[in-house]
């Protein structure tokens, strides 16, 4: 292609005075070299389109590099876009380019219609799958001659780095926003307890996962739902105790979905779609908060709430737990604090005391406390009383949990079985959990509400004993004939 014939190149205006032919040739040859040089080394992809949207012979080397293709001359520009950008964008590009060739339309105005200002360009691998993408920015300018718009000059740049930077900035902003939201929700919880909570959630989500994976037969789908429901309640319960509102809300949402599905009689696979989607959302949330927690863990201790607030939180959690479990079991229980000095709990025992209190309350509500109807038959007030208090001397710190529940039955049975007529040993009963469960589990006498929560009782007693053993704590159970049952737990004060 020469300068004289090629209308795409600007005409040379200046002519040298001496040896005009030689000078013109020399100028043309210089211009050609300059053009070749430019097209070889320019950093943008420069190309030209005719009215048929065909790429001209003249284009920059960078154009080939960016598109990942050679020999682009005479190719249709829209064909090149095919399978690299969505059809919607190709269609808009076609319209835009045709407008660009209409000289009566103002170029500046039409530029706003350019759909390729920023476009994600996808590249296929040898299998035809999209394996990578880059962000390109295409700009177009009209080239005029006497007849009108004769061609368009296109310039394409790779703006991937800039886009990625923008994305990174936006993601960082969103991440900080989320971190702030989570911080507000988790800072009040001690890191160890929070870690345990995360492990608990992970365990339950893993269980739900396993349940769904293992469900081969739709005939047992209601059982699958029950298992999922139970796990969700555990998550919700633990989140409630720690006042982790986002998790409570998510668990509630999930529980509602499961409840709705449970209403159906004939379940099909499709019915479980909302469950698996929710599961994935919950996992995502857990991962998010764990990531944030890891980042702030180092600083968490410095920003922890004061001990007085932590103490308030513990009492509040115990009250909430008592109230919720009582409601679930259909019992009326009044929680009383008594002389319980939360601030006196030795720092090293805070976690185990918390765990033990929850275990004991659970045990009491399940097995110690009667329903209002049962209590009225026994001539008692329909409301049971549950009181916790603490004590401390030179050698030990302890707590007492006392209730006026099912005396003469469970604890009496327990006492007789364990101690007979003799004194109870100082270290408390030496039964394993299943033996205790045997004593107090009376088939047929357990209400529907109780049966849902009592499955883990033997395990709980074992857990309690293990926790006490670890801290060298002691358990004592006291009875009187009619009035109360008391659990006393004491921990040695370390020197």
């Amino acid at each position, binding site marked *: 292609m020469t300068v004289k014939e090629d209308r795409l190149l600007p005409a040379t205006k200046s002519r040298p005075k001496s040896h005009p032919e030689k000078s013109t040739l020399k100028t043309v040859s210089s211009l050609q070299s300059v053009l070749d040089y430019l097209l070889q080394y320019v950093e943008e992809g420069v190309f030209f389109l005719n009215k048929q949207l065909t790429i001209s012979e003249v284009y920059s080397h960078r154009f080939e590099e960016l598109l990942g293709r050679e020999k682009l001359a005479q190719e249709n520009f829209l064909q090149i876009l095919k399978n690299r950008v969505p059809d*919607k964008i190709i*269609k808009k590009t076609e319209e835009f380019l045709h407008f660009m060739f209409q000289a009566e339309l103002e170029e500046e105005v039409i530029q706003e219609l350019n759909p390729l200002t920023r476009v994600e360009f*996808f590249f296929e691998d040898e299998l035809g799958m999209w394996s990578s993408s880059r962000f390109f920015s295409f700009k177009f300018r009209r080239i005029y001659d006497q007849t009108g718009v004769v061609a368009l000059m296109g310039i394409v740049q790779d703006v991937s780095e800039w886009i990625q930077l923008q994305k990174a900035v936006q993601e960082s902003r969103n991440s900080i926003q989320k971190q702030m939201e989570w911080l507000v929700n988790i800072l009040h919880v001690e890191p160890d307890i929070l870690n345990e909570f995360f492990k608990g959630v992970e365990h339950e989500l893993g269980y739900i996962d396993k349940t769904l*994976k293992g469900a*081969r037969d739709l005939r047992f789908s209601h059982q699958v739902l029950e298992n999922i429901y139970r796990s969700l309640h555990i998550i919700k319960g633990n989140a409630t105790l720690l006042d982790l509102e986002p998790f409570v809300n998510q668990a509630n949402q999930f529980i509602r979905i499961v409840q709705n599905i449970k209403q159906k009689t004939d379940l*099909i*696979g499709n019915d479980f779609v909302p469950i698996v*989607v929710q*599961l994935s959302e919950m996992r995502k949330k857990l991962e998010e908060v764990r990531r944030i927690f890891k980042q702030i863990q180092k600083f968490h201790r410095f920003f922890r709430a004061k001990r007085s607030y932590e103490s308030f939180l513990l009492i509040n959690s115990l009250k909430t737990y008592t109230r919720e479990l009582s409601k679930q079991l259909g019992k009326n229980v009044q929680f009383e604090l008594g002389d319980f000095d939360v601030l006196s709990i030795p720092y090293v025992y805070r976690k185990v005391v918390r765990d033990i209190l929850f275990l004991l309350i659970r045990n009491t509500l399940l097995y110690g406390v009667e329903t209002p109807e049962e209590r009225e038959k026994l001539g008692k007030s329909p409301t049971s009383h549950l009181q916790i208090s603490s004590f401390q001397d030179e050698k030990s710190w302890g707590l007492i949990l006392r209730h006026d529940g099912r005396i003469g039955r469970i604890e009496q049975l327990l006492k007789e079985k364990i101690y007979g007529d003799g004194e109870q040993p100082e270290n408390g009963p030496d039964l394993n959990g299943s033996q205790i469960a045997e004593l107090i589990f009376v088939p047929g006498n357990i209400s529907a509400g109780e049966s849902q929560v009592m499955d883990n009782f033997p395990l709980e007693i074992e857990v309690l004993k293990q926790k006490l053993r670890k801290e060298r704590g002691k358990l004592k159970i006291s009875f009187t004939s009619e009035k109360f049952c008391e659990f006393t737990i004491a921990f040695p004060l370390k020197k």
Partner: protein
Amino acid sequence: MHEADLHFFIDSTVTYFEEKTQTKAVPGIPYLKGDEPVMLEYTSIIGISGERKGVVYLTASKNMLEVLAETVFKVREASIPTLEMLISEVTNNIALSVRAAYGSQFMISLPVVVQGKARGIQLPEEVPAFVVPMDWQKHRFYLVISLD
């Protein structure tokens, strides 16, 4: 990924089997894919790009595809190319439904068929993958969807 997306892919697959074989494919209980590969003897993969990115694949046993070939193509003891073409057709139909439903904002690749259970398929890392077991005439196959 939204529930509607999952329902859509499942329904497209169910519709294909119902229309072509007059026997329903019954979806089982879906679950989240872990690290374990979910692949039977033949797998057909379609890539999705554009405003949303992801991978959808269908994996089935040779036995099932042979029975399907007999039903759809009236061919007994179908050859390997026929089986590959068949599984490709199933996923292509799903792809066409996706295009029809989601419009031209998506780019859908042509199906790529792989044989063997040797390796799992590389799925987008940050995007959860959902596995939908499906039963057709006592044969189990899987639809795996990973879409952001």
